[in-house]
């Protein structure tokens, strides 16, 4: 039986007035892959993620998640995915336990108490479960956001800078958890990040965006070799500044 991709995006375009935020991009995320979505500020990463989540409607093009059209059937796919961003917060006046309890119910998690306890232990949140979300440090909020994103054991996890504001030790542990989670569950991860070391460690493939277009893609080692650079950060700087003549502009091909 043919296995569908986790995400399939075709000719996706989003305009805000005269500004083209996403410009006819196409890509496919194989199930079980971890794909990095890189680009400078305003490159179109968050807009792309929002369209995959169904929070934003495209002007043209299609987004399919697990074979379902997100625009028409987002309610079928939302239980199977989740999202975390340090820039989207949880209700400040509720405790972490209350927040996680509510989201566990929204995702109709089987045995929510056990699941929350498991995740709280995994992300070292047990001692702060009774604290209000608004009283947490930025790093703690990021971990709570990740805990929320893990509640439904998502088959597709969209992460926007998952280790922003974390100290190196905690960030490293989070990366290890994400890698383990993917190995254990076969889940697909789409990771938007500015941390190139993180991307090199976690991602099989990388898509580079600039001005709403995907300007290059490939495995991190392949990109580094192809551009003749020492690391992914140098490749990133070349591509986002538009100084690299090798930017392939591969829109339309699958990122496989």
């Amino acid at each position, binding site marked *: 039986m043919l296995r569908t991709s986790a995400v399939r995006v075709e000719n996706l375009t*989003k305009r*805000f007035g005269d500004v083209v935020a996403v410009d006819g991009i196409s890509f496919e995320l194989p199930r079980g892959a971890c794909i990095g979505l890189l680009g400078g500020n305003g490159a179109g990463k*968050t*807009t792309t993620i*929002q369209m995959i*989540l*169904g*929070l*934003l*409607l495209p002007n043209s093009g299609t987004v399919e998640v697990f074979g379902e059209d997100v625009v028409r*059937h987002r*309610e*079928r796919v*939302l*239980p*199977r*995915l*989740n*999202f975390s961003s340090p820039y*989207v*917060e*949880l*209700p*400040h*006046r*509720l405790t972490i336990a*209350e927040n996680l*309890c*509510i*989201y566990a*119910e*929204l*995702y*109709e*998690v*089987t*045995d929510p108490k056990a*699941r929350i306890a*498991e*995740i709280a*232990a*995994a*992300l*070292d949140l047990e001692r702060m479960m009774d604290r209000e979300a608004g009283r947490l440090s930025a790093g703690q909020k990021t971990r709570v956001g990740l805990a*929320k994103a*893990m509640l439904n*054991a998502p088959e597709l996890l969209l992460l926007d800078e998952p280790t922003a504001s974390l100290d190196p030790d905690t960030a490293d*542990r989070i990366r290890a*958890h994400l890698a*383990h*989670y993917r190995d*254990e*569950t076969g*889940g697909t991860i789409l990771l938007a990040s500015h941390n190139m070391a993180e991307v090199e460690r976690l991602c099989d493939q990388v898509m580079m965006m600039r001005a709403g277009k995907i300007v290059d893609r490939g495995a991190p080692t392949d990109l580094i070799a192809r551009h003749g650079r020492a690391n992914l950060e140098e490749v990133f700087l070349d591509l986002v500044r538009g100084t690299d003549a090798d930017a392939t502009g591969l829109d339309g091909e699958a990122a496989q």
Partner: protein
Amino acid sequence: MSEIAAPERPPVKPHFSRRRVLAMVMRYWYLLRGSWPRIVELMYWPTIQMIMWGFITLHLRENSSWVADASGVLLSGVLLWDILFRGQLGYTLPFLEELYSRNLGQLFVSPLRPIEMVAALMLTSFLRTLIGIVPPTLLAIPLFAWNLFDIGLPLIAFFANLLIMGWAVGMLVTGLLLRVGLGGESLAWFLIFLLIPVSAVYYPVDVLPVWLQTIAFALPPVYVFEGMRAVLFDGTFRWDLFAGALGLNIVYLSIGAGIFLHQFRIARLRGTLLQSGE
């Protein structure tokens, strides 16, 4: 830190979920129980209103034959109006909380459907209205020897119609909030007061000029307050007024829901769900 394993996965249920509705009601209950001033605030203004109108009634009963004929007419009016007002606030304020906490994006990335959010807000509004209205209603019994529950079963009809109208206005306000963001916050407090002059809360509708009566009869509250006076003065429940209020409420509730869902779609087009907030 330990590792996170994959739990047993429940089947995908793309249907209206009571569990998600109750989860949202629980979210608003957690918010309320965590702050006693919020609970007190729910009862505070209805109680102050009741006391003030109670004393006005005591005074007018000696000086106005209309009030003397049915001494509870003003107090009934003020408490029934508060059902409409609190019903609308009870729907709108929890939604504003989502904007304050920038939580709409998180919510609508979850399987929560807009119609489930609407149902949760309606249920929350019902609970908040009960918390706000029941204490002053009970307090009026010893203070003014007046019992709203003496209206009997028609009180349920009045309560339901006013609450539904409150929800309809709440849907309109939340739709506008989706459109304009927190800049429209004050709509939650003042929009409904447009209705009060033409709702005939404290006076019969025939006091209004004829052209204004036409507008009044296009709105459900006037049927409720006329019905209330029919019970208090004549001891009769006017089914025609009840049917008029109910019919119009169905229309306004449909319009309110339509506006909210339309604005939700516009928010998805404009990408404002993730950015909504302070």
